[in-house]
């Protein structure tokens, strides 16, 4: 009864799953969902963690199974892969805009940009008032993927999705 789905259709379906910590973007936009394979019997879903210890991976695993169960697919294998290693460069531009609108400043540069290593590339725009007059409060934030900043003009603190 479920054989009329293609791998592409299932990928699209699973793309609807929001990230548990940042629900405005989905797991495909974030680059966590890598591949979906369906061979009329077994559904193999390949995911990769953002950070090694990201506690959201278990929730995402559960969400994938629930979603597939809803359309009658019960034989599921969720595979966790580490290569290639996840990078913020995979976050799509559309998703970066969604992050910004949600109040999280998106990753400011590509990880291949060597200037970032020397700390010379930190001009973050406040997602609320768009001022560039901002400073870091804490290198680590509310989740493994974020740092904490504040805007010196509108005085609001905001999350920054750090580059990895």
């Amino acid at each position, binding site marked *: 009864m479920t054989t009329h789905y293609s791998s592409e259709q299932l990928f699209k379906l699973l793309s609807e799953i929001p990230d548990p910590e940042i629900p405005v973007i989905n797991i495909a936009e974030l680059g966590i969902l890598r591949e979906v394979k369906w061979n009329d019997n077994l559904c193999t879903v390949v995911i990769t963690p953002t*950070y*090694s*210890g990201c506690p959201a991976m278990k929730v995402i695993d559960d969400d994938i199974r629930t979603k597939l169960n809803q359309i009658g697919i019960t034989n599921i294998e969720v595979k966790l892969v*580490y*290569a290639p290693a996840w990078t913020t460069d995979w976050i799509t531009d559309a998703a970066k805009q969604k992050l910004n609108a949600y109040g999280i400043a998106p990753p400011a540069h590509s990880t291949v940009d060597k200037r970032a290593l020397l700390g010379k590339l930190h001009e973050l725009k406040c997602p609320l008032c768009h001022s560039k007059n901002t400073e870091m409060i804490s*290198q*680590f934030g*509310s989740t493994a993927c974020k740092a904490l900043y504040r805007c010196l003009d509108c005085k609001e603190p905001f999350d920054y999705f750090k580059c990895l």
Partner: protein
Amino acid sequence: MNLQEAKFEYLLRLGDSSLIIGHRLSEWCGHGPILEEDIALTNMALDFVGNATALLTYAAQIEAKGRTEDDLAYLRDEREYRNLLLTEQPNGDFAATITRQFFFDAYLFFLYEGLKLSKDEMIAALAVKAHKEITYHMQHTTEWMYRLGDGTTESHQRLQNAVNDLWAYTAELFDMDEVDAILIKEGIATDLNKIKTQWEHCVNEVLTKATLEKPTTTFKQKGSREGKHSEHLGFLLAEMQYVYRAYPQVKW
């Protein structure tokens, strides 16, 4: 010792060190000197425990005796643990935790850089991932070395004490034995002599900039490669393993 046994042993060394330092850092939860630091230390703990999970999962696969990563973490006793002595040392004051972390981060930074080229695909993949995270941690710990070392008279003194106390545990980081020899030959492991030179260079530079004295003692604490630990590990394991051992079938 065959290749499979050497690989299992090597993965335990990497995985156990990550697990134990991760657990130590997690002990700061709710006790950090400031809120931001509480968050930083526990974030790092999360990365290390995650990294340990991946390494021990792979170790269990290589061993192929039906054990899981949880069995390896929760059902082994002190003498079966292969973590570096440095990682099990108590948190002490904030200066001691930062110093322990800085010594260890600098070690892992160069070690994982080398392991990125490992001929074992899984080890190489985990090295790439861990190296990114360690680089971020190291920016944080290095900054604290400068701030505390080149800070007030008291912060300087506390950091110098920590450096002196922990120094004896650093020589062991570079010990090699049969396990390393087998894996280096296969292109799987990294030669720790090379890492030692890089580590010493990096540590000297940071100590100098932090206005700290490099200890002159050559006394060396060792034993972790054979499972001989300091008295601190047993207490740590008792706390970490209690629930799993008391309720063997528990799920949450």
